[in-house]
């Protein structure tokens, strides 16, 4: 059973993984279905636009109105498509406990899936350094949880309306995830949570958090790929 320690800047840990592939399978399957739903809505909206195009004799203003409605449907379906794509990616993170994967893809995914948390706090998550692959070997789901926890700490510590940035860099054989937010000195969220520290320890990652000139930096150093370390 998943444990939640009750604090708002972390999501607990996964002491027992046996149920996770099941969750991933169901989520993956449902996102596939939802994708079809969105595709259908999008095509039906397009058909509406086609019918307007091919039947130009309509009441004044109705043509423009129908185009507008079709456009609104299409914008929402585009939004839904992105979310479903990201949720589907997320659902596959639990497929294997150990895998070689691109860390930037996981960070990008979690940043997108965390957007709503940021919006609710009137803040923004920005990503940098995700243009190039950064391959690591680890537990993809737990790494994603690490990223999420770090992001939530960054969000809570950030001053209102300031963005939280998350970056991925590679140095020597280590990959580093850095969460940066402008925070008030003396904020209670300056330190990485105990939960984040424990998760990082389990993943053999190092966590550093510090406040320099009002910036909270959480760096998570992930171990190198086994093949390069040997």
């Amino acid at each position, binding site marked *: 059973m998943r444990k939640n320690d009750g604090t708002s800047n972390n999501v607990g840990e996964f002491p027992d993984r046996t149920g996770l592939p099941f969750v991933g399978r169901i989520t993956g399957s449902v996102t596939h279905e939802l994708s*079809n739903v969105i595709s259908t809505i999008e*095509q039906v909206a397009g058909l509406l636009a*086609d019918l307007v195009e091919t039947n130009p004799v309509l009441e004044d203003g109705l043509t423009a109105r129908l185009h507008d409605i079709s456009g609104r449907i299409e914008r929402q379906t585009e939004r839904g498509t992105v979310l479903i794509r990201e949720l589907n990616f997320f659902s596959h993170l639990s497929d294997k406990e150990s895998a070689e994967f691109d860390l930037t893809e996981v960070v990008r995914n979690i940043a997108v899936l965390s957007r709503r948390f940021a919006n609710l706090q009137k803040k923004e998550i920005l990503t940098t350094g995700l243009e190039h692959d950064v391959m690591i070997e680890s537990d993809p789901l737990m790494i994603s949880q690490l990223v999420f926890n770090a992001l939530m700490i960054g969000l809570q510590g950030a001053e209102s309306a300031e963005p939280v940035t998350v970056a991925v860099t590679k140095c020597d054989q280590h990959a580093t995830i850095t969460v940066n937010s402008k925070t008030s000195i003396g904020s209670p969220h300056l330190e990485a949570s105990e939960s984040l520290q424990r998760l990082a320890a389990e993943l053999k990652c190092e966590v550093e958090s510090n406040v320099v000139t009002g910036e909270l930096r959480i760096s998570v150093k992930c171990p190198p790929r086994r093949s390069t370390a040997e």
Partner: protein
Amino acid sequence: MGDYRVLLVDDEEELVSTIVERLSYRGFESDYAINGQTALQKLREQQFDIVVIDLKLPGMSGNELINTISMAYPNLPILMVTGHGAGDSPAGAHPDGIFELMLKPLDISELVSKMREAIGAQERRHK
């Protein structure tokens, strides 16, 4: 009557029938099948210029259907449509027999463009 005839294969009937209608406004006369068996039956009964196949089909998979069609109708261009995620991706970017791999949701203009491109390439090969 459209310029070209296309067979669309997808188990989402609402989706595929809507695309059929939209293609009719764009110079394509289309039919659809919701599974591999029906698709093969329609190919036996009618002439098509191109087939568009969804990877995920009930019963006979999209990949199996593509292999069967490629062998039985080697001159028939095939576009494959796939969703997203690790579970959906076929092995290799363009498996044998596929002219192009397209991602859902389909943009109708892009679909039309790819179909014309595939048919054109096939026609040039046979000149």
